[in-house]
């Protein structure tokens, strides 16, 4: 499939940290867990639009820096009892290179806003 875009190497993202990717006028947070799994989540908390990329990463979750909402990185859902869901993007890692798929997702964002 041609709509995978190469965005970085795994090493550019600190373990238990995040980097921001600017793509298609959007900000996407790229997270790396302790065991080097990579996740991509739109950099806006569903609660009050806090930049998730700035939060503390733990397990497969991130805590929003503004009001401590905790979100699952895999599906973007808030950990109950909190509610809400951030948009997530498909990611693949091949030979330490990280690829993201934006098409289709971008139109979903426009549709939802």
């Amino acid at each position, binding site marked *: 499939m*041609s709509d995978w*875009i190469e*965005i*970085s190497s795994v090493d*550019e*993202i*600190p*373990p*238990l*940290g995040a*980097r*921001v*990717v*600017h*793509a*298609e006028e959007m*900000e996407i947070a*790229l997270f790396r867990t*302790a065991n080097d799994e990579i996740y991509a989540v739109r950099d806006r908390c569903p609660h*009050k*639009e*806090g*930049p998730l990329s*700035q*939060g*503390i*990463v*733990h*397990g497969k*979750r991130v*805590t929003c*820096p*503004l009001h*401590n909402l*905790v979100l699952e990185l895999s599906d973007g859902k808030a950990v109950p*009892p*909190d509610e809400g869901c951030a948009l997530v993007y498909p990611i693949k890692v091949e030979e330490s290179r990280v690829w993201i798929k*934006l098409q289709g997702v971008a139109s979903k964002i426009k549709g939802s806003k």
Partner: protein
Amino acid sequence: MKEKLVLVGNGMAGVRTLEELLKIEPDLYDITVFGSEPHGNYNRILLSPVLAGEKEIGDIMLNDENWYQENNIKLHTGKEVVEIDRRNRKVIAEDGTTASYNRLLLATGSNSVLIPIPGNDLKGVVTFRNIHDVTTILEIANKKKQALVIGGGLLGLEAAYALKQQGMFVTVVHLMDSLMERQLDPEASSMLRETLENRGIQFLMETATEALLGEDEVWGARFKGGLEIAADLVVMAVGIRPNIALAQKARIHCDRGIVVNDTMQTYDGRIYAVGECVQHRDQVYGLVAPLFEQAKVCANHLAQLGFAQYRGSLTFSKLKVTGVDLFSTGDFMGDDTTESIVMKDVDRGIYKKIVLKNNRIHGAVMFGDTVDGSWYYQMLRDQTDISGFRGQLLYGQSHLGDSGHGGANTAADMADDVEVCGCNGVCKKDIVNAITSKGLFTLDDVRDHTKASSSCGSCTGLVEQILSFTLGGDYSEAPTAKPLCKCTDYTHEEIRQTIQRQKLTGIRSVMDYLEYRSPDGCHICRPAINYYLMSSWPGEVVDDPRSRYINERAHANIQKDGTFSVIPRIWGGLVTPAELRAIADAADKFNVSTVKITGGQRIGLYGLKKNELPAVWSDLNQSGMPSGYAYGKSLRTVKTCVGEEWCRFGTQDSTSMGVRLEKLTWGSWMPHKFKMAVSGCPRNCAEATIKDFGVVAVESGWELHIGGNGGVRVRPTELLCKVKTDQEVVEHCCAFIQLYREDAYYLERTAPWIERVGMVKIRQQLIEDGGNRKALSDRFLSSQKFAQKDPWAERTGDAGFETHEFFPLEVKVSHE
């Protein structure tokens, strides 16, 4: 194949254990539940309001049948288990249903005691224990007029009040000479009796019931001495007894209750027991808080984690009678070794008694005004040293002045739409609704669901009151030693001691050593552990930026729109024209939208993008201004007045002293933010008496004040001592900061820390033991050698530290 877990007893303790278990290990067991009542799990402690017509049965259901289905739990309602076949590991219900188990959990609760007197089996003689009892009582109350309640304890009085509400004539007969003698002292007890008598309830004290009279239905009662009264409803509320029949029949060791160890195991290692049926360390509990603590421990073992221990509970009592406020906890009678503080206001119907032992609360009983009950209870649990505010103790916490909830301090008479939590905009009715509709019992539950008291915490007392007001006295409180967070059961203190004793130097090794149950902690514990490591081993431990809150990681304050603010250090509030020009130039160059003089005599630039930060810092660095740490758990500002150099009242050079203290102490990581001020005379224009460390100049030297706070809860400082020389000020300041760094918990400001440990301890360490003070100060200065590196300078320029923090990845998206 999954192991099988069977729960006997579909009540609050048993189901709570399942809930706790499912939270940790949702798929470990095939679960089967037997309940003798034909309902799901309901909130038994709200039966009194149902009887009084203040709530419906539907309101008090906790887990309906959907809950069991969603969690794949097989539920048998209306089936009483009559036998445990331990050899073949199965239970047998009265209708012949069987279920085999690998582990069995007994939560059979307790039964009401039926007094062995003639007529106790007549129609119209009931106990008050479950939904069936309540519906029976309500049926009779609809038709008949005369009610007799046997027993003047908590349950009896709640029943009496409820029956009065239903329009009956109510008499309470009690064997002892005062009501609720186990929960109240004679003084409070007689006030309670007077209040209830004014509401039309009659009392027969020191009276034993001899017989209940009637052929088929009851029509009266006869007491010792021959007195007879009419009664067409008799409620026996003389106490409860653990229901141990099933366990006894299975030859599981029982005494008054089913005997369990600290892991909630019975003498049969496969069989656990929780709740009112249990006897633990010789104690039997009938309140909800201990049951929930047991449930948590039991779930920990069922989930095969195996580290939690139940060590018994401290409880308090509160009566669920609308408009009657009473509260008691601990040893409220006192003895030769205790002191009592008492306040009594007969006209207002208020009585408060606090029993003290060694400057700590040992017990309390209150009538009429119980708003501070949870405060006293908390200090009793935490063994807080109250010597610093003993004089204000009886007047309550509101005396100390919180902000954020309009000064309200009594939950009971608050209107529904009054805002309780000023940070998150949560009203009283939101909290009450969440408690009743979602079945919440703990402060943490309420915080999770409503966000009330989850930010600044100043309304915590109010929220606790709403909890106890909504649930009666029966709400659960965290045990004395609060775990650091949900990832571990260890406390702040235990974690710090482990780090120091085992010489652990990395977050990972701490988590491994403490057998953490989450892979890499959470946003609460990681920053705390990082701090304990940094402060325990200065110079050896490498800071972990990934365990820092964003502000400390990026060395700037994140704002609500994701931009950052920059505040350079302005020593003691003194600034040169060149520095002002440099700030103005930076503001121009980076199009800063807001420039503000801060509350701490500095200048803040707001609205900067993260990737602009290194460049702004570089510009400010070039004019000699380092980071102001306005984002950190560290020294913020040292506020000063102009002092003797200019002021006609000044007695010392307060500005120079402020600059000197700031130069010495900046950059040190502390449990929380730390503010100082130096005033040049007792007029105290620098407001030093609401700072963490305040210095006030007097003609003969300096007064040193500690533990003030001007934020959420205004708290003036306490005087530490008076000193003569500048050098003494410096040494005391460094020693105090070091003591705070070594002793306070992460995120504990100096004010609550001092309230927790007491001024006596601090004076001992800093004043009485001069050698110790010197040692503390030396340790502080030596750790400063490693700490005083301007983080801005480290992050600017080509060889910048952590550059990935500040710059996004650029990606070209091609559209073919």
